[in-house]
């Protein structure tokens, strides 16, 4: 597989502050690669280094195998969709999209054709003469994306472009972005703090924390097999318990013994166990599950398709459970005595 972007041991310091620390990864051609992490974790800095607005303090960035150290932003085969979109307010839609092509001195009639093609791609045909201030939020997003794409970059970089949109528009744009990606086939590197966006769109996700990459993998790997408490927590509200592993089971304080899949061959020692709330069953009576505990419903949030419960277990731990709504036994009220349980294959060990 051809590698489009490669970071080798890249570190970036701003004065004494280390924004990115010894980061390495490869992005394959045509991949949708996401950098996911909380704000201030260094993901935007990585994007700005790839596009050339920041220089790595140490390490090297290669695009299509070429080292980029001495290449200024305007000579790189990358294009960036800015968080603020940065559409030029003094130019109309056509002039915005044609900006890069005009600088490359491409003949006018070809520019016209390519701009039209791009507007068709994002389903905004005939928008050439519109002013930027006349566009809606979603339209601006699309114009910003095609303004970058029209230059046929090797890599399209997107810096949280969906940030300012409201939820409904955001969901629409996620679908739209996936479709655009499918049609143009360009490599995408996408920066976001929203795990939902990352999981939905990406081929590969790098989860970051404090300038370091915590885990790289496919959405399924990241979700199902988080390698640290941070990743587990960041990707999706999960139940994490600290305990001691011994013979296929983990002894957790204030909870008891949890059986786990013995496939991870661990020596004795302290471990973390993660159990996804949606893998946990809840009911008045439960059987045929590997781990069953009794408790009392402390909180219940009705969310339409699902109900999220917070259950206080008899031995003092509390656990969150996501159950379908309404379940076979209806919705449980606060204070109700219930049982919860899950299978041992859903007890994921985090090392």
């Amino acid at each position: 597989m051809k590698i489009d972007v490669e970071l080798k041991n890249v570190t970036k310091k701003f004065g004494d502050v280390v924004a990115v620390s010894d980061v390495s990864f490869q992005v394959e051609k045509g991949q949708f690669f996401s950098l996911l992490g909380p704000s201030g974790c260094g993901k935007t800095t990585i994007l700005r280094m790839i596009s050339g607005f920041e220089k790595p303090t140490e390490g090297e960035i290669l695009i299509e195998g070429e080292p980029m150290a001495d290449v200024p932003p305007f000579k790189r085969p990358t294009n960036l969709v800015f968080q603020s979109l940065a559409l030029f307010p003094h130019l109309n839609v056509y002039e915005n999209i044609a900006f890069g092509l005009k600088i490359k001195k491409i003949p006018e009639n070809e520019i016209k054709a390519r701009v039209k093609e791009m507007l068709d791609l994002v389903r905004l045909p005939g928008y050439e003469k519109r002013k930027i201030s006349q566009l809606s939020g979603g339209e601006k997003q699309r114009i910003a994306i095609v303004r970058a794409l029209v230059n046929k970059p090797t890599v399209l970089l997107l810096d949280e472009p969906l940030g300012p949109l409201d939820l409904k528009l955001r969901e629409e744009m996620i679908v739209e972005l996936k479709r655009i990606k499918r049609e143009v086939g360009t490599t995408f590197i996408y920066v976001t703090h929203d795990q939902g966006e990352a999981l939905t769109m990406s081929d590969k996700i790098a989860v970051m924390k404090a300038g370091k990459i915590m885990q790289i993998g496919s959405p399924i790997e990241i979700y199902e097999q988080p390698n640290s408490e941070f990743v587990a927590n960041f990707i999706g509200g999960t139940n994490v318990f600290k305990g001691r592993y011994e013979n296929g089971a983990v002894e957790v304080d204030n909870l008891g013994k949890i059986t786990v899949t013995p496939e991870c061959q661990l020596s004795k020692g302290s471990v973390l166990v993660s159990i996804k709330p949606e893998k946990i069953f809840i009911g008045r009576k439960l059987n045929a599950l590997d781990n069953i505990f009794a408790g009392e419903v402390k909180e219940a949030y009705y969310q339409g398709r699902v109900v999220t419960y917070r259950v206080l277990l008899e031995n003092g731990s509390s656990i969150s459970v996501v159950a379908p709504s309404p379940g076979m036994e209806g919705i449980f009220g606060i204070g109700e005595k219930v049982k919860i349980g899950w299978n041992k294959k859903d007890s994921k060990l985090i090392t």
Partner: protein
Amino acid sequence: MTKSSIMFIVVLGFLLILTFFPIAILLLLSLNETSTLPLRNFPTLKWYIELLRFPAAINAVKYSLMVASVTTGAAVIFGICGGYALARTNFAGKKIFTGLLLMPMVTPYIIMGFSLMSFLLKMGVNPSLIVIIIGHILITIPYTTLVLTSRFIALDISLEEAAMDLGAGKFTTFRKVTLPLIMPGVAVAAILAFIISWEDVALAVFLAGTEQTAPVYIYSLLMKLPKFVPILTAMSSIILSFAIGLAFLMRMIERISA
């Protein structure tokens, strides 16, 4: 209406009269036989006709326009360079520069006028319109630079980065994106510089040679030959008509850029 509102309106009315009444009287008396009340032979264009026999007065207005235009052009270019540097770059000695820049702003004109002219005379340079321009550029640079610095800071830097990302070099980015977007700021800076130069009398009286700007001409005629005051009242209406045009232009630009 409350008591305090009435009080405010009375005070404001008084201040408005304080501001506008003298100018109105000046215009009124320019149409009078004498420059004192009571009105005699009113209205008469006598002094306007008389003004035609004072080419120096007309020339003074021309010189003023010339000095102000050249000053404005230079100060705006200095201001664009300096403002861009202050807002966008981290050049060596930035703090010293900002301190230096404020100096001409907080120094009385008499100090700059006396220092510059005594120095130039010693160097063998005689007072002239060019010397006035040199002095006026000095006093307008801080204003244009500061106005444009704040405009550059207010301009979203990602717009410039977007242009570079799309393949534009530093110069193209500046020409195609930065400059068009700060144009309203440039206009404000230009008008500010123009007014400062156009207004100035305290600095220009030191620097003016035989060719005098309008304020210097009014000042020196008033000091030397007070009997020609009626001529000056007629000259004032010419200056005022420029002023009103300028004021409207300024207001329009403010509206557009707001």
